[in-house]
């Protein structure tokens, strides 16, 4: 039973992505290390640009991880440690961009497009409904000529 469980655990482990954080980079203090890992998942590696520094094997990601841990060991708060990195590389390193005038379109652009589309759809539907009014009934003249036409066809 125990072997089975162990084998199962190993199989699950195989399915997990390999971690880029090397053991020698890790801090001895588990609390600080946990904070560093948490912050790392929100920082972009600038070489691979869509990987976090926590996942990336690039040399630069290693450097930033090390810098981040240095700051935490020096007693920085999470915000201060992240600021040290943003000061060097700009807000582009943040995978979750901050809300300010330059990022308004980024945050609300998709919602705006959705609103525009909804407005367009509504206008179209309203137009469509107006066109689908019940047909105007035939006038007496029209009814008579239709009658004659039908009779002609039958005879």
């Amino acid at each position: 039973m125990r072997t089975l469980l162990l084998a199962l655990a190993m199989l699950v482990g195989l399915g997990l992505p390999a971690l880029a954080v090397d053991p020698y980079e890790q801090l001895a203090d588990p609390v600080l290390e946990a904070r560093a890992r948490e912050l790392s998942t929100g920082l972009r590696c600038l070489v691979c640009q869509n990987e976090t520094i926590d996942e990336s094997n690039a040399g630069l990601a290693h450097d930033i991880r090390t810098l981040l841990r240095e700051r935490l060991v020096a007693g920085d708060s999470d915000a201060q440690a992240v600021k040290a990195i943003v000061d060097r590389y700009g807000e582009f390193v943040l995978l979750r961009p901050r809300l300010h005038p330059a990022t308004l379109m980024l945050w609300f652009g998709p919602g705006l497009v959705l609103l525009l589309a909804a407005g367009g759809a509504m206008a179209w539907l309203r137009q469509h409904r107006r066109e689908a009014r019940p047909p105007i009934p035939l006038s007496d003249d029209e009814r008579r000529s239709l009658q004659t036409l039908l009779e002609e066809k039958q005879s």
Partner: protein
Amino acid sequence: MRKLIYALPALLFAGLAFYFVLALQPDYDPHALPSVMIDKEAPAFSLTGLNGAGISRDGFKGGPVVINFFASWCVPCREEHPLLMRLAEKEHIPLYGIDYKDTPEAARRLLGEFGNPFRAVGVDADGRAGLDFGVYGVPETYVLDGSGHIRKKFTGPLTARQVEQELLPILRQLSGGAS
């Protein structure tokens, strides 16, 4: 009003096409990032020299300098090298090198083979100075003014066009006017 709505798709396409044309320009690099260090004081560094004297930020105060981060393992740096040689020999620009994450032996071999355009080279073996500058790929070139502030950054190998249109004008401006 109605006509405007019919023109809308064409207008949208024209706007989009404009951005596509911009992105197709040969100098445009979609991966280049704007530096946040522009107009800020350069980070303090003090590096041992590759041949003789070392370099430090405070040693550069007084006149504009151009700092080029390079490495012997960096292929685009070799591409850029002839241009740097020309800048040093013909334009006499104050060019300094920082050997990023490299061994002094390899760097000496590179400069011995292709020529040394730098007035002095600092060795940044662990990449710490590069990290403080916000270097994310070599080569990167920084222009520092007389007070040690970063005035311009070029990411990737310099092109002749960048040198003519940006680097030389800014150097002229920095050494001519008050800095």
